[in-house]
């Protein structure tokens, strides 16, 4: 397979882990969670600093996940206990995490160099397979583990409460359950996923940068909205599948844009444009007005 294509899909799976978190907060919980911009690099910082001190790379991923759940919990507590608006709670945690991430790594960027990562395939299971394919397989497997874990969770009683709290918090209270606690659980999970994605991306790039979280939430939202627009109508499709497929499409769009001559400094601009297009296409009112426009022309 072409290295470029396998790269797009690999990144799609890795960022897809983060998007699965975003779909839980944004679509299920109805909570635009800015924490992700801080918890994604948090995961990377935790993984990078642990890796360099010789910790097993898989343990680094698990540690990153738990660091992320902690960040989500903080946002949840700010919102639930201190009654700070959802958007602001996320921004506050995100801001604090910038300093915390710098403390963890000691400097704004870190090269992993020759440290053993989850993508080190010198011998063993993947001997003889091109490293780009082996990397793709590892990214796919991690994304699938998270996908099935999330699918399973959403079908548990606790998961039912998470689904209810975004749609009708009053029902959660009427059922004798604490609305705030349910929100905090969902935020913890979502940011755990973001941090895990950060840990994996950092090992994939063998590089940590303090600004790598910039725009993560926007990317997650675009991916989720693209996924919902394109695949949302498929009956019984899981939210996790929508998040992963949406992310792959988004990564492909960016890669195509770069390939046809845009520069990397244009990336955020392209993201903004793709965001607008995805939002416009997802709105049924605009779809209807386009259909009407064509009908009028045909009649004339």
């Amino acid at each position: 397979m072409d290295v470029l294509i396998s790269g797009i899909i690999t990144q799609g799976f890795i960022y897809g882990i983060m998007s699965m978190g975003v779909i839980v907060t944004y679509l299920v919980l109805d909570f635009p969670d800015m924490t992700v911009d801080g918890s994604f690099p948090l995961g990377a910082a935790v993984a990078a600093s642990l890796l360099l001190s010789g910790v097993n790379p898989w343990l680094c991923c698990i540690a990153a996940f738990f660091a992320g759940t902690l960040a989500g919990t903080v946002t949840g507590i700010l919102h639930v206990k201190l009654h700070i608006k959802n958007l602001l709670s996320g921004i506050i945690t995100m801001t604090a995490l910038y300093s915390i991430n710098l403390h963890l790594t000691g400097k704004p960027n870190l090269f992993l160099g020759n440290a053993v990562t989850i993508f080190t395939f010198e011998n063993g299971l993947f001997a003889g397979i091109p490293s780009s394919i082996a990397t793709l397989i590892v990214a796919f497997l991690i994304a699938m583990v998270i996908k099935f874990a999330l699918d399973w969770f959403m079908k548990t009683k606790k998961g039912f409460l998470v689904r209810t709290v975004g749609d009708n918090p009053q029902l959660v209270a009427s059922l004798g359950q604490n609305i705030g606690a349910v929100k905090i659980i969902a935020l913890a999970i979502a940011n755990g996923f973001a941090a895990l994605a950060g840990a994996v991306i950092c090992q994939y790039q063998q590089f940590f940068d303090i600004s790598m979280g910039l725009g993560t939430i926007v990317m997650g939202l675009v991916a989720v909205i693209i996924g919902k627009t394109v695949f949302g109508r498929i009956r019984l499709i899981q939210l996790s599948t929508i998040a992963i497929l949406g992310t792959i499409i988004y990564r492909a769009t960016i890669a195509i844009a770069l390939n046809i001559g845009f520069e990397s400094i244009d990336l955020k601009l392209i993201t903004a444009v793709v965001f607008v297009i995805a939002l416009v296409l997802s709105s049924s009112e605009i779809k209807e007005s386009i259909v009407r426009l064509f009908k009028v022309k045909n009649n004339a």
Partner: protein
Amino acid sequence: MLELNNIKKTFNKGTPNEFILYDGLSLKAEVGDHIVVVGSNGSGKSTLLNVIAGSVYVDSGSVVLNKIDVTNKKEYIRAQDIGRVFQDPKMGTCSTMTIMENMSLAYNKGNKYGMEAGLLKHKREMFKDMLRQLGISLEEKMETKAGALSGGQRQALALLMATMGNPKLLLLDEHAAALDPKTSAIVLDLTESFMTKDMTSIMVTHNLADALAHGNRLLMLHKGKVLLDIKGEEKKKMTIEALIHMFSKEEDVFTDTMLF
């Protein structure tokens, strides 16, 4: 069963819009009491339910539920013993979940919501039987999302769900008001079937005919005070005309909507 003692509640305290609703409201309800509450707009009917359920806290006085003082207890803690149906059918169901999922969720009330399967597959036939009794064919729509149901269907489901956890107290806030006459009758009939000897219910309504036809105790509120409290035979003898007369005596704005 339920006691409200000397409840005081002022809204918008300290602002020009300050409004004293309750200035020492007291009310006692025994097990088996099925109270219908009527009163004009702003008489404090809905707030009464909110005060009992815990969505509104009182300034002073106490709320006692099953001999336990719950005045400062949070809504979700009081909810263990309370079933609630709102005027808006959306408030009682989760629109993004199917009927089967909604009923599984409600059936689990009183137990832990942990990591077990949320869908109670083994209760499916029981849920279907419960739906069948409504007589509106909801049992054939187990996999339909609640958001795709009509207001009446959704409210019937909400009422069923509210009573699934065997609440000791059922609070109904004009729960049949937003429905067409036929569905309204179905929902009220279903409500009547829950008005048993070992339950207590408080139903707020604007419809005087419904108020006389249902329940065994009638409460008329006016400006946060109990104007009339009758039960049993006395309630049975009460007429719409007499009620209207009492309303108009209070020089209150009286509208058509109370009749129909």
